């Protein structure tokens, strides 16, 4: 009955080789190989003109660009137009977001299942529509809308509204589905109709969340509105495309500075607002 100490369980564990770096069941290794292959294929198939990019000529052009960019245009008349375009960009983003919030809410109701017994027949098709709206970038819809709404900020506003409707509609629908069901049940049990259940039980509960989603998208939309104009849809982008097309680098530089200021302003504003709301 004597216990025999086995040598393998001595103080030091026996020497074991580390696992091999690559083995057939290592998922991460295969993913890594795949990623490397994708990157290699990308560089191989694109006709990238590095020689041209690093050529003396293009370096000189870059240098000249950079030099001219350092001397922004500051004539009073131009600055007035710049301010107007900045305001136009802000207005585009605000109206686009507002429209999107309205349409998003309208579409979020059929896109959500109000209660467990709700058959929600419109849920799948509405969600498909929201996804389609969401997956077309603002710039593409702006380029399409310029055809029917003409050049100018209106096309850009509608494009922002279309994309943002998709985004907000989906977020709103999630918020509505996740709202606590208690108050709604109480009203429903008292025989109140679905429309009023939504208005008096669901909407008040999710309103703060909807508001914060909308503000967040507005922030994104100001950024988007600044460049939308490149396809002719108004705001700072349209000015940028115009002056850059004419190689007026002084004006271009002022417009770029205005864009950056606008975005920085929005960043600071939303940071302060968030901090105020969090308190």
């Amino acid at each position, binding site marked *: 009955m004597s216990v025999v100490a086995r040598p393998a369980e001595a103080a030091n564990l026996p020497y074991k080789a580390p696992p091999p770096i690559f083995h057939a069941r290592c*998922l*991460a290794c295969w*993913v890594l190989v795949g990623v490397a292959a*994708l*990157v290699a*294929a*990308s*560089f191989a*198939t*694109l*006709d*990238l*003109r*590095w020689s*041209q*990019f690093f050529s003396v000529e*293009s370096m000189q*052009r*870059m240098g000249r*660009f950079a030099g001219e960019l350092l001397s922004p245009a500051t004539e009073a008349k131009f600055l007035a137009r710049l301010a107007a375009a900045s*305001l*136009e960009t802000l*207005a*585009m983003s*605000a*109206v686009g977001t*507002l429209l999107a919030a309205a349409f998003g809410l309208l579409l979020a109701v059929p896109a959500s299942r109000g209660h467990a017994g709700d058959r929600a027949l419109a849920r799948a098709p509405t969600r498909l529509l929201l996804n*389609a709206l969401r*997956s*077309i*970038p603002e*710039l*593409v819809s702006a*380029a*399409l809308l310029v*055809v*029917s*709404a*003409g050049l*100018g*900020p*209106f096309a*850009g*506003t509608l494009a922002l509204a279309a994309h943002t409707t998709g985004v907000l509609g989906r977020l709103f629908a999630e918020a509505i589905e996740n709202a606590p069901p208690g108050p709604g049940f109480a009203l429903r049990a008292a025989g109140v109709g679905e429309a009023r259940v939504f208005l008096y039980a669901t909407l008040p509960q999710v309103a703060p969340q909807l508001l914060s989603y909308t503000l967040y998208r507005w922030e994104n939309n100001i*950024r988007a509105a*600044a*460049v939308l104009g*490149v*396809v002719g849809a*108004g705001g700072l*982008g349209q000015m*940028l*495309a115009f002056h*850059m097309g004419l*190689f007026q680098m002084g004006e271009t530089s002022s417009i*770029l500075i205005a*864009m*950056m200021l606008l*975005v*920085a302003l929005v960043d600071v504003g939303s940071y302060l607002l968030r901090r105020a709301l969090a308190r």
Partner: protein
Amino acid sequence: MSAVALPRPELRDPAWARRVFGASVAAVLLVPLLVATEFRPWVLVEPDNLKVTLRFLGDFLPPKVDPEFLALVAREAWRTVAIATAGIALALVLAIPLTLASSAALSVSALAGRMHALPFALRQSVRGLLIVLRSVPELVWALVFVRVVGLGPTAGVLAIALTYSGMLGKVYGEILESGEAHPATALLRNGAGRLQAFFYGLLPTNAAELTSYTVYRWECAIRSSAVLGFVGAGGLGMQMDMSMKMFNGSEVSTMLLAFIFLVWLADLASAALRRALG
């Protein structure tokens, strides 16, 4: 017994004054906004515009599906993915050194309390560079590079590389600094170099988060590389722009469908990758 005749319950709103005031303030604010955006929905249904729109939209159905055109769309879709992938690869080449240079988690002088002035200034200036890279939209970089290297994918790759290096660098820095700092500081205190501390202290605990953010950004880059085509940087967007300028609705609708499919596919791939690695 006679009570004061109250109006019907739905007409009794204790907050009506506030509501009317709020609504009128909103209206007063909204009018200048609508004027500034030239908000005239009726232009959409003016006969001239409507004719053009309807003809263009009518062309959308059926989408163009002849094999030659589909092959072109497939090639351009691959170029869109390739521009995004190459752009992200170059962005990583730029972002990783900038992250290492800007991360306070790898500071040796901060071990003894406050960071010294010189390394502090260096880190802040690298962060400033990242902010500048990030705050210029990729579309603007693309416009600049199209003028320097000409139309084609080079401009798109460079634009994505610059903007995304700013985004990646900033978020990588945040991830590294918010993670568990103990292993790295222990290594640094015991005389390990900064790179060793990074590879053995920071990377193992943060690798999943870093990878998942990179994959997410790759997905975003695919979306934006399709858009960059509109300013001449190659890929699906460039073809779409050309077809739109020729009012060729059936080609546009095929490419829109291809684009939606591509984004959906990238979404799936990125979700699967993140699940596998996370």
